[in-house]
């Protein structure tokens, strides 16, 4: 019976082509606007490391004090002094310190120009904490950290650029004029948003080129991409600056369960209290321990444009549905006499109701197909609205296609509840009489 209703629905699409066309267009535009903006929102608000986001935390320690911190919040990164103290304490299962940087590469061939490469200075636990997959070789251990080794891990993309994709483990790369021995090459790994380095990097930047040992990078005085300072800037060189209250190091710790989290929180407070007793901090402990999703939320990684456009598109879709309710009402009630005949011939109200819901479903399906085409156009045009690095994240995949069609069909059927109910209420006797 349902397939017969579906068949009737498809046939009735061709009746009142103007009304049908209006509805299909309204649903198509509404669903396409929603899906296009949703495809961006999905990309920028997603969980970049779903299986571990609840075990990874970034500790914050207020080294600036209530007069200079950010509305009571500790700075979003650590000073070198505090970062080193957390590392030496060994209170977490794993810990990594990192900062983003840019270095120059001079190609061997004399007719190509030098170029800049982006990387992170990290400590050895980075690769296991963030589950970085390796193509060749591996990361480095704490021995290499302590030994301040001149080693480097390349990304798959960078390895392709420099070594043509060959296994480069054991070979040497020159960055900023100094040699580093390759110990590993990662597989393509590009979590978005780039949760772990929001302080000196953008959440949606290009894939990383390389990773250097933190201690080595500091020894080579490789500047972080960003730092923030308070107080008086009386530096006469790198060492002064490094041991100042300027913040530029992002720490991450891995904590397996709630007990570990509580005890790490306690450790942070005790550390800050020690600093207060030692006279380094002139204020009460002010520390935070946020996990990945809390950190992304706190750092407001989702651009306001994404939220506003998604909300507007949803509002737009609601109006399209209100419009559809009105048009369906007109379309169905126009056929009151036909309904009267069907009811007189024995169709129950329920059957009439189901038939008209199915008809709305076919309208929704047609709207969904149009919406799909418009979504495809919209997704390829999001470069208009967002910076290229965010626009790249939007893509039409199977789940978005399925969602577009499902949303179109179900929203239209929901919009048809009332018009179909009105259709089912048609009195057969009255209709037959007036004919």
């Amino acid at each position, binding site marked *: 019976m349902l397939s017969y209703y579906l068949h009737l629905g498809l046939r009735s699409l061709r009746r009142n082509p103007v009304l049908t066309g209006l509805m299909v267009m309204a649903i198509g535009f509404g669903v396409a606007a929603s899906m296009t903006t949703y495809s961006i929102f999905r990309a920028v608000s997603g969980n970049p490391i779903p299986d571990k986001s609840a075990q990874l935390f970034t500790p914050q320690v207020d080294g600036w004090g209530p007069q200079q911190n950010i509305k009571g919040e500790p700075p979003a990164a650590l000073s070198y002094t505090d970062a080193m103290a957390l590392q030496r304490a060994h209170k977490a299962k794993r810990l990594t310190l990192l900062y983003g940087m840019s270095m*120059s590469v001079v190609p061997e061939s004399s007719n190509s120009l030098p170029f800049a490469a982006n990387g992170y200075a990290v400590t050895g636990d980075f690769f296991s904490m963030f589950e970085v997959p390796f193509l060749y070789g591996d990361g480095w251990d704490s021995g290499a950290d302590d030994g301040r080794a001149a080693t480097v891990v390349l990304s798959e993309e960078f390895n392709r650029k420099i070594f043509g994709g060959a296994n480069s483990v054991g070979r040497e790369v020159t960055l900023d004029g100094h040699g580093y021995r390759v110990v590993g090459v990662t597989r393509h790994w590009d979590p978005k948003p780039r949760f772990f380095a929001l302080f000196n990097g953008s959440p949606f930047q290009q894939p990383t080129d390389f990773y250097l040992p933190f201690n080595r990078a500091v020894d080579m005085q490789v*500047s972080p991409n960003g730092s923030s300072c308070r107080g008086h*800037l*009386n530096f006469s060189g790198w060492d002064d600056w490094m041991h100042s209250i300027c913040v530029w190091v992002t720490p991450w710790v891995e904590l397996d369960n709630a007990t570990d989290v509580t005890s790490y929180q306690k450790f942070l407070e005790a550390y800050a209290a020690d600093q207060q007793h030692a006279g380094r901090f002139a204020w009460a402990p002010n520390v935070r321990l946020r996990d990945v999703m809390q950190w992304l939320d706190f750092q407001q990684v989702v651009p306001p444009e994404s939220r506003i456009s998604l909300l507007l598109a949803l509002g737009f879709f609601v109006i399209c549905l209100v419009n559809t309710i009105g048009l369906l009402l007109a379309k169905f009630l*126009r056929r009151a006499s036909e309904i009267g005949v069907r009811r007189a011939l024995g169709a129950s109200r329920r059957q009439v109701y189901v038939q008209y819901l199915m008809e709305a479903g076919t309208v929704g399906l047609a709207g969904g197909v149009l919406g799909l085409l418009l979504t495809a156009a919209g997704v390829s045009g999001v470069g208009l*609205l967002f910076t290229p690095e965010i626009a790249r994240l939007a893509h039409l995949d199977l789940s978005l296609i399925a969602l577009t069609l499902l949303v179109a069909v179900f929203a239209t059927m929901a919009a048809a509840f009332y018009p179909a109910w009105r259709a089912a209420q048609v009195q057969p006797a009255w209709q037959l009489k007036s004919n």
Partner: protein
Amino acid sequence: MSMHIQPILAALRRHKAGTVLIALQIALTLAIVCNAMFIIQQRLAHLSEPTGVDEANLLVIPNQWAGHMSPEQADAQVRTDLVALRQLPSVSDASPSDAYPLSGGGWDNFIMRKPEQLTPTTDASIYLGDEHMLDTLGVKLIAGRNFNAAEVVYMAPRQVVIPSVVIVTKALADHLYPDGSALGKPIYAMSTTPTVIVGIVERLQRQGVSQWNKAYAYESLLWPARQDATGVYYIVHAKPGQLADAMREVPRALYAQNRLRIIDPDDGGSYVQIRKRIYDSDRGMAILLAIISAVLLAITAAGIVGLTSFWVGQRRKQIGVRRALGATRGDILSYFLTENLLIGIGGVAVGVVLAIAINLWMVTQFEMARLSLIYVGIGVIALLALGQGAVLAPAIRASKVSPVEATRSV
């Protein structure tokens, strides 16, 4: 007119669902279109704020060094580069800097009026440059003087040297010394060493224009200094009409000086490129909202056409009876126009409340400004006019119903 309203209301009561749907659609459309127009205006105003520099003739070259270079070597190369740049036929002047207006971000310092002050008075974007910087940027000096060559200091990496003199923007001068006495006064930029205001420029936009910068809009300072952290920006002023030539000649001249440098194509460039990069999302937002608003108005109009046509079809017999009883075509036309106007007024009444509610919510969520009532007014008029326009075609069709229809059975 008033005598028509009673029967129209009576008729509408028999079409409750349709009436409510049209009114609801008008209300929602008004709420969204008002807010969209307001956001569009805000974004367009934001992206057309002037920088204060001679944008038409400026070129910014982001220069990073490749390979290993000592700070002394780098500084010597910067000076050689500048001599070469200033000699180019298409170039009128050039200066090294650490940043440029609308670069997106860079060095900013808290500014205090007293050396011992801990809580800052304000925050300023910092531009370094030599004695050519003012002419290169083309900013207008409104008080005091330019730097002289002897005042230009060298800052080694991670070394902060506070120059003895500073040129500030009028916005910064007024913020620090509201009585207008800034010239000749010292300021303290995160240091106990004073730097004395020797010049005031009319306008110089900050490096960043994001939300947090708004509190310090146009508050910038110029220091006579050369610094080479990991690289340097060359600000180049082309001779009038020769920007395109300069854009070709400058990188070629620099590479001829020394090939071991990196000029990032995604940074700097002409001000057309710089503006496009920083205001990308503002312009995109305005375009998206304009498209959504236009489609929304079209869909609402189409919905009104659809439902009114249905009503006309349903009431052909009644219209025929009215015509047979002496109603003119004009009466029928005005009946449908008035009916739509009544629904429209109901819709916009709800819509105005919704529009303000949405705006108030966005003020709390997105640090947005309060909706100006002008937009609500324009929206109300636009939607009522849209309704009248949409209903016109079906209403004219209704007015053409012949009185004979009264005698037909359907």
